[in-house]
């Protein structure tokens, strides 16, 4: 039993050693460390103006779309109301 256990351990170690020996050599790292800067390079900075313009434009568009839909619905209901008033009076 003890001899079988020793045989298994030796086999596992041997296979591991073979697998490790077969690994390709490690490539050198792309950079050795981080380089701090005080501000982002110009190319990396996100411009604020497009976001600000998009926000204000969206508010205006949303309000105008809502007012337009409201005006359209009110016109339809007012026409229907006028028609119904006429029909009630003609009865």
């Amino acid at each position, binding site marked *: 039993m003890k001899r079988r256990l020793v045989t298994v351990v030796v086999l596992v170690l041997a296979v591991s050693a073979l697998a490790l020996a077969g690994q390709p050599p490690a490539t050198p790292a792309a950079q050795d460390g981080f380089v701090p800067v005080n501000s982002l390079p110009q190319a990396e900075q996100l411009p604020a*103006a497009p*976001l*600000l313009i998009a*926000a204000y434009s969206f*508010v205006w568009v*949303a309000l105008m779309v*809502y007012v337009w839909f*409201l005006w359209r619905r009110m016109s339809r*209901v007012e026409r229907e*109301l006028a028609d119904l008033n006429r029909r009630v009076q003609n009865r």
Partner: protein
Amino acid sequence: MSRVFAPLAFVVMALFAVAPIIVSNAPYEQTMGLVQKVFYYHVPSAMLMFISAFVCGIASAVFLFKRSAAADRVAVAAGELVVLFGIVVLVTGPLWARKAWGVWWEWDARLTSSLLLWMIFLAYLLVRRYGGPGSEKLAGAMALFGMANVPFVYVSVNYWRTIHPKTSVVMTLGPGMRSAFWFCAVSFGMLYVLLLTLRRRLEDQQAQVERLYLALDD
């Protein structure tokens, strides 16, 4: 239409025409710079979203307990405006956040609870539209629940760890920013009164149409 309506509409249009000039003359914020100016439309919209949720909830309570049809019509109008101003908040906020925080969205307390509040009132409108006869009472109960959420959304930034600015920001604004902010807040407030009046008038007219159809059937 009331004699006050046309002058009010004119005043609101004039205020909104002047607002961009006021905002552009306001000082820049030290860390956020230009993008912070989204604040002048974002925060008044959020305030109106909360106010409209209260109007909808209170009107729904009056409808449920006093059976007032007029209150129900105000509730519908206010519910629509919660969704409208909520969309404005939920779009302008991420546009600001992208620059200020580096991300479009964060699942923090304020943002998540605001989104949930908006969805409650969106559900209110869907129930009113597709719920069939008698759904007004269910919708009214939903509006009450939505109204109860508003204080939690408001204080969420003070009690939970959140990336969103705290409620003390508005009260501690510098002079240049304070005047621009309150100018925009008053403009939005008057716009809200105008839209609520228009929308409620539409509901009144639809109710009148239904009464006339019933009169014709008799």
